[in-house]
């Protein structure tokens, strides 16, 4: 069963190209460009984001419960004459879901060699706790 956009592609190749470009522009999100890795053990979560050439002033780190938000901007210098342009410019806004809630006060962030490392200790109340078998909860 063909959907209408599919019919458009077949009937009008030019329209198909325009629709495709339009769709890509609309769905393209700056978050796609920020490579982020997350590790966790029982005690803490560690997040790495590659931000080469960025300084601390360019980056914002926010933490709330199980969400980490990395945002910032690298402005393009329109005065420059680019022979080749591959690096990402503009705003990035990446949200990362962590495996557990974290203690915002104990969070540490370092920027070293263009890698942002954020270490987030697990929220004490979110850690697993033993329940006494005789039925008394803590």
């Amino acid at each position: 069963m063909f959907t209408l956009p599919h019919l458009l592609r077949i009937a009008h190749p030019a329209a198909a190209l325009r629709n495709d470009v339009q769709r890509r522009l609309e769905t393209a999100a700056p978050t796609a460009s920020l490579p982020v890795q997350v590790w966790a053990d029982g005690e803490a979560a560690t997040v790495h984001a590659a931000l080469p050439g960025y300084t601390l002033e360019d980056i914002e780190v926010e933490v709330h419960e199980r969400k980490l938000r990395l945002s910032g901007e690298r402005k393009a210098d329109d005065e420059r004459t680019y022979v080749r342009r591959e690096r990402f410019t503009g705003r990035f806004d990446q949200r990362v879901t962590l495996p557990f809630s974290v203690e915002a006060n104990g969070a540490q962030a370092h920027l070293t060699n263009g890698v942002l490392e954020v270490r987030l200790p697990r929220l004490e109340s979110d850690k697993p706790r033993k329940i006494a078998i005789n039925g008394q909860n803590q």
Partner: protein
Amino acid sequence: MTFTSIQTPAEQTHIRTFTPRADIVAIESGYQVEVELPGVSSENLSVELEQGVLSLRGQTSGTAGESGEKPRIKPIAYERSFRLSEAVEEERIQAELKNGLLTLTLPKAERALPRQIPVELN
């Protein structure tokens, strides 16, 4: 700034290698190339020039992952080569690594730059 070579070929085969993103900008005196090398420090970066080809190879250090501290992170490598035009004055190429960004400054040779010829009046 000195660059040391990093790995023997045998060790290189175990490391994932990526092509880093680079911007090339024309400046008044030549070109500037900015290469993204996140996680690479200067002792793990080599920049070599041979027969007009500028090659770079950088490697992140990774971590062993002792429990309670950093997770185990595998090192990765970045490699890229640029063919330079003959107008580039090779002896004056400069390289600076800062915040994981390598900036290569490639000056054009004197004779390739536009110059004013003074006109004498008699």
